């Protein structure tokens, strides 16, 4: 069977921060491949470096050493400005606390990333409506976040993440602020999007139920990856 090409390729990444004269290693000689279309779970205890790894994959930070390839592009060598433009087109973010702009409607929140692209108003509208339909919120597009439930707000967040048709969706604890029922609905939605749109999803989570949805789960401990083939085994370990 032909191996799926890797959407994310990390080779020999080191990341350290300097505090005074002390060097703090956050990630050590880390290498990772995420094939196209995979739903990868990323778990680890507090301080293990999950957020740092997330920042590197999402183009929000650069490694101290090593290479980070996403979608065939070496993002670890890009300039700030180019990274920002790249991020808009290739990365879709879903946050734990939704982080919707309260003064904008659901429609306008979803439209936000598209404002940075050279699209006509009609094209933006088409893409926003498509995204809202995919998450089942086309009837709530004129509502502001304050008028939506937690689950609905997260759906808007997901719509915003997919509206630019990104290469990779990064979900940081997407169910962390939701009740059990809403959390299941969100995870179902992510799974459906992955199947129907063939998206690659990186899910950072502490939630065992969420991790169970992943094809594969990797563990981060003290800046190094401990990988498990089977998501269920990892869940049992957690």
């Amino acid at each position, binding site marked *: 069977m032909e191996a799926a090409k890797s959407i994310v390729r990390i080779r020999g990444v080191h990341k350290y921060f300097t505090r005074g004269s002390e060097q703090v290693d956050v990630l050590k000689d880390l290498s990772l491949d995420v094939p196209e279309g995979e739903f990868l779970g990323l778990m680890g205890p507090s301080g293990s470096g999950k957020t740092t790894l997330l920042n590197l994959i999402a183009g929000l930070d650069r490694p101290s050493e090593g290479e980070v390839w996403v979608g065939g592009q070496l993002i670890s060598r890009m300039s700030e*400005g180019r990274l920002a433009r790249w991020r808009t087109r290739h990365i879709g973010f879903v*946050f*734990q606390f939704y982080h919707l702009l309260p*003064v904008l409607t659901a429609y*306008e929140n979803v439209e936000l990333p598209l404002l940075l692209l050279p699209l006509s108003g009609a094209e933006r509208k088409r893409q926003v409506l498509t995204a809202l339909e995919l998450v089942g919120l086309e009837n709530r597009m004129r509502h502001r976040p304050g008028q939506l439930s937690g689950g609905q707000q997260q759906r808007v967040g997901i719509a915003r993440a997919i509206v630019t048709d990104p290469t990779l969706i990064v979900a940081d604890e997407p169910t962390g602020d939701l009740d059990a029922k809403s959390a299941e609905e969100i995870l179902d939605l992510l799974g459906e999007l992955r199947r129907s749109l063939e998206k690659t999803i990186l899910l950072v989570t502490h939630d065992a139920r969420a991790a169970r949805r992943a094809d594969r789960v990797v563990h981060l401990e003290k800046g190094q990856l401990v990988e498990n083939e089977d998501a269920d085994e990892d869940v049992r370990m957690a």
Partner: protein
Amino acid sequence: MKFCLLIVKNLRRNVLRTLLTALGTMVLVFVVTLVWSILFFLDEVTREKSHNLKAIVTERWQIPSQMPFAYAQTLCEGAARQPGDARPTDSATWQFFAGTLDPAKRAAEDFIVAFAMEPRKLATMMDELEDLKGAQAAELQDNIHRMELQKSAILMGRDRLAKINKRVGDTITLHGINYRDINLECEIVGSFPPGRYDANTVINRDYLNDALDDYARKHNGKQHAMTSKTLNLVWLKIPDKETFSKIAQQITTSPLYASPAVKCETLSSGVTSFLESYRDLLWGMRWVLCPAILVTLSLVISNAISISVRERRMELAVLKVLGFRPFQLLLLVLGEALLIGVASGLISALATWYVVNEVMGGMKFPIAFFPSFFIPANAIGWGLGIGALTALIGSAMPAWSARTVQVSDVFSKVT
């Protein structure tokens, strides 16, 4: 346009704060507009012109001037003696008659200072009256004609009329204060168009001069004490500075004006000299009051924008994560401040212009012999400029802070 919409919506985040900031801006722009209008007008009248100047001839060593009326004829000709001498294109004389309507009480509201002058000179020598057009010009000509036909006719500004509770058609008696024992019974035949002369009064100079002659007749030929001091000012209209220099030379070297000696200066120089006693006040208005207000305005806007940026650091971090670059975040914040500043400044300037000029009929702030001031059309630009500049200055630091927001804040906090 799409960024503008984002800016407008961000201002709706806290409507009360936005409105209060806008209101503070409007009030401060209002004050600066009033002050600058006064300074602008005074700068205009004290600015030396090179063409179509007005010159004033006054007594050299005394204020107020008290020259004999015998000086009038020759001064109005610029003291021209030789055929090639320079002459003014027009001229006018002023005699100040101070009187009261009630000699027993002598209350402030009964006190009137009238300019005694040739009625026809109203239309050719008085600032703004010489520029009237249409119905206002016709009405002025009509009043001039009435004053020429009836020497006892008097013309009054609207504010003056209101103050003494009289109307056009009424008769008043002015009991002389500086012209003791000279009482002038006058009929109010008209009023000045609204504006600069709202507080002024004009009588026919022949009426005053005839009264002085009449005094002598009634007192066995003894002249009234003011007869030799009745001429206070002579206005000359001069085409250019070169002609002014010649006329000034002619007047100051003429043997006709030995006692009292006279001086000839441009109107702007004369006004500057007259404003000398207000120099400190005007300096304070220009260099202390206005800068203090502008600084306060910048701080008001800075405070509001700082709070707004601090409140939504998370949102700004999200925008950065979504791909907004630092300079775009900076522009968003600057845009919010500019929108408040420009809109508030413009509205305030427009409202000030309308209320002061159209509703109040001028800002009553007597400086020297200028009883009131109007807001010039330039003020619209001032309001816009003040609003924009103070918004930019005030929001510079918060906007810079916005672009340095850390994206790590948006990710989950591990518990």
